[in-house]
């Protein structure tokens, strides 16, 4: 009786160990990436098969663009706040709101131009095939937001 119970428990324990072992081994690289200092860049490196030199170039470009991007974020936030205040007060489309919407639109265009410039630079720093793939992916995810409208809710 005891021996049978022992075999049953042993089987369950070994099965559980196999599950945990394979799960942790299978997710170890991803967990390490998430816990790294620059998870998004590490992901980029792996996803687009970048070598050391290519990764270094991409990381440099990313760092330079980051400060530009942060400044743009602040400008967008400020513009959104102004627009929000105007919209809260108005119940008709005033010239002031029109101006603010145009400014917000101009800011978006400026932001998209900066982004595209950065994406092109990054893609050029990658091996040609990977660069092409990167560009297709990033353009679809940033410049073609319409696809979200067709996603099921």
């Amino acid at each position, binding site marked *: *009786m005891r*021996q*049978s119970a022992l*075999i*049953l428990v*042993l*089987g*369950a324990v*070994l*099965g*559980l*160990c*196999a*599950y*945990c*072992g*394979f*799960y*942790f*081994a*299978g*997710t170890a*690289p*991803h*967990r390490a*990436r*998430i816990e790294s200092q620059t*998870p*998004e*860049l*590490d*992901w*980029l490196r792996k*996803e687009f098969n970048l070598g050391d030199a290519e990764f270094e170039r991409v990381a440099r470009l*990313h760092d330079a*663009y*980051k400060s530009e*991007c942060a400044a*743009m*974020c602040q400008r*967008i*936030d400020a513009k959104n706040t102004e627009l929000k205040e105007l919209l809260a007060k108005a119940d008709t489309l005033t010239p002031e709101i029109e101006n603010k919407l145009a400014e917000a639109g101009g800011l*978006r265009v400026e*932001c998209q131009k900066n*982004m595209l410039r*950065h*994406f092109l630079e990054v893609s050029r720093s990658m091996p040609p095939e990977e660069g092409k793939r990167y560009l297709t992916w*990033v353009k679809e*995810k*940033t410049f073609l937001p319409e696809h979200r409208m067709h996603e099921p809710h």
Partner: protein
Amino acid sequence: MNGQDPNNEPLSRVLREWRVKASRTPRFQEEVWRRIARSEAGGERVWWKVCWRWIESGVRRPALAVSYVAILMLVGLSAGLVQARKDAARMDEALGARYLQSVDPYQAPRH
């Protein structure tokens, strides 16, 4: 012998007229249900015993015991692999989104 005589008319009359006037105990219905539940639980215990005996006899055979352990290990291994792939894909997707947030001000999280 007189008491066992079927032709004993006075006794037969008394028996014909005899009516049992028994009243139910106060919690009769509850008691009945309790007995039914007890008997069913006993049945389950028997079922488990049969099942356990069957498993025990199987596990005592070395080939079956090894197969049992091997199958559980295979199941664990496959489940771990499938779950790891699923979670790795989810983490990849999250990291991709994080990259986009880091380069697109319109996708960056607002505080």
